[in-house]
């Protein structure tokens, strides 16, 4: 099968090149709806995801994602030369004979390099996940990516011109598969007759007979390779599950618009391109009720604006403004704008996905970040507290900058597995728990600030105010984590029939609750001095991190939906760092505060 793809590739490469689509307007093209990973999305998102997956980047050279997709679909010859595939592993490059200093490779380059590894694939696939070396993993990934890319590239191969002289009998027909499809059987019959008469030595054929044989061969290859090609489910057919790819519908669906679009692209006609892509967008949107133009536009806007980057920049600005000799109101204003962008981003996601904001680990980080920021902003506005704004801002920045690392293949805005797809409980339980996380993190960051202040001495008023803030925040944290945890139990009872199963994620949530109960009772019973209470609160960061990510590392139980590789080290480092920092602070504060008594 794979060999067949490469053969086909050779054909595609032989196609004439003349397209140059520099100043095209891709905005209508980007809006064409497509079914991908269980959801109707605009081509823009589809292109971005694939581009990110293949190249790890959001642009190739000067091509935007939509421009790249258009090239892939309509000008395969050029697309095969585009440096697209990201190969990082040095061992792998060595093994494949690829230049070590090059990072991106074209499919042509990879095709040659990967061919010798084809024979290893079955053996590699038979191995267990953990048993593969990074290089082996990447080989598999690369093969998979190349196949996926070729399949995408062939999505519209039936309407692209074949690089061939048509025999006289069919010379009136357009030189593409779609036009020749109705007469394909005739062509095959003709060829069989020739073989019967003249045998299979092509040299004995007349010129026209040679053309006929070549045509028949190409049509067959094209058809075989495109069978089951469902990469681009772009034709709405009936119900929500009924979207089909071009090769599934070309026999009965009118592809004229798409043919014109391809022609416009290949003849470099910007005007036609814009008009026809707008027509296709209109046509597709008229033919489906599964999505609305507004939703598609919103998603494209979300893709383009990158609201989290905007929010992060504004949060960072407000952090600078706190220390700048400017009035505090500027920092507050910048922070408010950041929080606004952040909220808008989460709202947009909810509208696009039509579900509550937290369903994946990535989304939980975004949401916890927002809650942390909002509470910090509330305190900062109410009490004019720079410390609260600083603590909240730093925590949010940290959360937002970790978030992208939890996405392995780009943000696909994915749908949820069945067990999680219960909107009511998902909303209540998960939002409660994540709000609890946010409160814990805020409390911990405030405690960090308080500890540093205490180490520095002075600022007694500020310190007292901070401590007064920390107490109710950690009470709120207890409320939300405790209620959230029990609600999780109730959700489990409702959905799976057991209230509490000592599942790692449940235990993680309980861990936070127990820690908070411990702090509160230690404080009340007088066993925990204010300094220890502060340190205990500061350590909440670690407890939350363990509950949030640590349990995923165990990879057991019902909650392993958020399992991620390679996070163990970062988590270990974080826990060790915080432990060191806080014990260091504790010792230094004790030394510092003892001295005056001795003196």
């Amino acid at each position, binding site marked *: 099968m794979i060999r067949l793809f490469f053969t086909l590739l050779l054909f595609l490469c032989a196609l004439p090149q003349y397209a140059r689509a520099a100043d095209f307007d891709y905005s209508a093209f980007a809006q064409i709806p497509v*079914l*991908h*990973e*269980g*959801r109707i999305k605009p081509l823009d998102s589809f292109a971005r995801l694939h581009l990110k997956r293949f190249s790890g980047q959001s642009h190739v050279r000067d091509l935007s994602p939509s421009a790249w997709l258009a090239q892939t679909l309509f000008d395969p010859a050029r697309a095969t030369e585009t440096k697209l595939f990201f190969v990082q592993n040095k061992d792998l490059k060595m093994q494949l004979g690829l230049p070590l200093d090059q990072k991106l490779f074209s499919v042509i380059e990879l095709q040659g390099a990967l061919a010798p590894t084809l024979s290893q694939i079955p053996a590699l696939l038979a191995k267990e996940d953990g048993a593969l070396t990074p290089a082996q993993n990447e080989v598999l990934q690369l093969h998979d990516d190349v196949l996926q890319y070729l399949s995408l590239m062939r999505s519209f191969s039936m309407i692209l011109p074949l690089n061939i002289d048509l025999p006289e009998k069919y010379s009136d027909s357009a030189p593409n598969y779609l036009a020749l499809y109705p007469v394909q059987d005739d062509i095959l019959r003709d060829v069989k007759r020739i073989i019967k008469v003249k045998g299979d030595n092509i040299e004995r054929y007349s010129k026209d007979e040679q053309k006929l044989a070549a045509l028949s061969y190409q049509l067959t290859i094209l058809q075989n390779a495109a069978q089951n090609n*469902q990469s681009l*489910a772009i034709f709405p057919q009936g*119900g929500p*599950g009924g*979207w089909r790819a071009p090769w599934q519908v070309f026999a009965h669906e009118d592809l004229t618009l798409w043919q014109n679009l391809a022609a416009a692209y290949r003849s470099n006609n910007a005007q036609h391109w814009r008009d026809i892509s707008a027509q296709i967008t209109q046509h597709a949107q008229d033919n489906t009720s599964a999505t609305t133009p507004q939703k598609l536009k919103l998603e494209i806007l979300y893709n383009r604006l990158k609201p989290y980057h905007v929010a992060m920049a504004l949060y960072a600005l407000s952090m600078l403004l706190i220390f700048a000799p400017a009035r505090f109101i500027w920092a507050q204003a910048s922070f408010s704008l950041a929080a606004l962008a952040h909220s808008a981003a989460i709202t947009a996601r909810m509208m696009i996905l039509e579900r509550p904001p937290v369903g994946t680990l990535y989304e939980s980080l975004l949401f916890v970040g927002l809650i942390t920021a909002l509470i910090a902003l509330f305190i900062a506005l109410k009490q004019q507290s720079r410390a609260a704004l600083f603590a909240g801002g730093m925590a949010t920045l940290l959360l937002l900058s970790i978030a992208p690392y939890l996405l392995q293949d780009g943000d696909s805005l994915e*749908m949820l*597995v*069945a*067990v999680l*797809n*219960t909107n009511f*409980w998902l909303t209540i339980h998960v939002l409660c728990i994540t709000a609890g996380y946010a409160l814990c993190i805020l409390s911990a960051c405030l405690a960090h600030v308080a500890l540093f202040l205490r180490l520095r001495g002075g600022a007694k008023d500020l310190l007292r105010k901070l401590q*007064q803030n920390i107490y*109710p925040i950690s*009470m*709120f944290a*207890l*409320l939300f984590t*405790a*209620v959230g945890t*029990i609600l999780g*139990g*109730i959700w489990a*009872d*409702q*959905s*799976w*029939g*057991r*209230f*509490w*199963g*000592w*599942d*790692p994620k449940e*235990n*993680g949530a*309980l*861990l936070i609750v*127990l*820690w908070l*109960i*411990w702090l509160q*009772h*230690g404080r*009340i*019973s*007088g*066993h*925990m001095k204010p300094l220890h209470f502060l340190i205990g609160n500061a350590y909440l960061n670690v407890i939350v991190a363990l509950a949030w990510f640590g*349990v995923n590392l*165990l*990879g*057991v*139980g019902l909650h392993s939906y958020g399992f991620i590789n390679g996070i163990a080290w970062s988590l270990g480092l974080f826990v060790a760092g915080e432990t060191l920092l806080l014990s260091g602070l504790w010792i230094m504060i004790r030394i510092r505060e003892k001295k005056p008594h001795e003196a």
Partner: protein
Amino acid sequence: MKMLRTYALRLAQADMVFWLMPALIALLLAGTIAQKWMGLYAAHQMFFSSFIFWVGPLPLPGGYLLLGILSINLTLKFLLGSEWRWSKAGINLTHLGALILLVGGLLTALTAHERYMVITEGQETPYMYDYIERELSIFVDEHLKYKIPFDKLPRTLSTLPFTIEIMSTCKNCEITKRAETQPDEFGDTALHGMAQFMALDPKPREKDPEADLSGLIFKVDGLDATQDGIYVAIEGMPAPIMLTHNEQIYHIMLGKAQSMLPFSLTLLDFVKESYPGTDKAKAFSSDIIIKDGDLEWPAKIEMNKPLRYKGYTFFQSSFERAGGVERSIFSVVENKGRLLPYIGTIILTAGLLLHIFMILRRPKKRKAS
């Protein structure tokens, strides 16, 4: 009496919680991390469903003990140590809520029973099976006569007209080939059925006890020469072991402990719905008919939407598809403590909210005075 009160008051102190929590936290961490290696069930049994567990020669407090002390502390605190003032109402309510949750947990631990049912489309059954317990069942002329829990098998069974002597059992067995050259461990005794080429060796329990393959080897005496001898029984045998005596047919089977619902379920149709264009499941559901005495009516069990009837709760937990036949797997739960967590949560939430409300109001009061 006074002394008792002194002790009780001591036990009601907040510092009890301060000392208990680190132990509970440590237990929780250990019990969670251990799951990676022991599996959820075994870790659960060792750390959480135990009073004391041993690490080498060292006895450590288990979940029951720690939660028990916590419950005593909470009860005494609530009854003797509560300050019945408006300003403490939040704390008192919170403690009451927590206490109810703990009692609910105890009740669940004592009464909850989880089993499962497998029903093929078009079939009716009242039977459910235990996830963990196995049993040996003996049928006489197709009627179930004896059911013996696997853990309570006696050395010899003499209630039958012939004797069954249990030679060996294993809760999780490795099936090995009985080598012909191997000196026969049973001497001259004849080997029957699978015993002729199969031997059983115990192996470590699976992480998931449901996946264990239990088995036993027994010796039959007191029948005729063609039937006396050694037999092997393993869970999920394709056919039961068959013996005949006085024209009566005895079937012997080993399997998951079976019990009967006071009514029956019929599976009409199982439906799996996927996200468009993918294999990712969006929802599962089963259309069933409940038959109770002379009454019968249709119902639906959906993922996340269980069916509750007569104290049993049925959940769509899984399904099987093989050879064009669909089977629905339901987990069946009986739990008498079901309601308490709901009540506890409401009280606890109200209590904590009230308490936080009080804290936030406090500074203003000071200002006013």
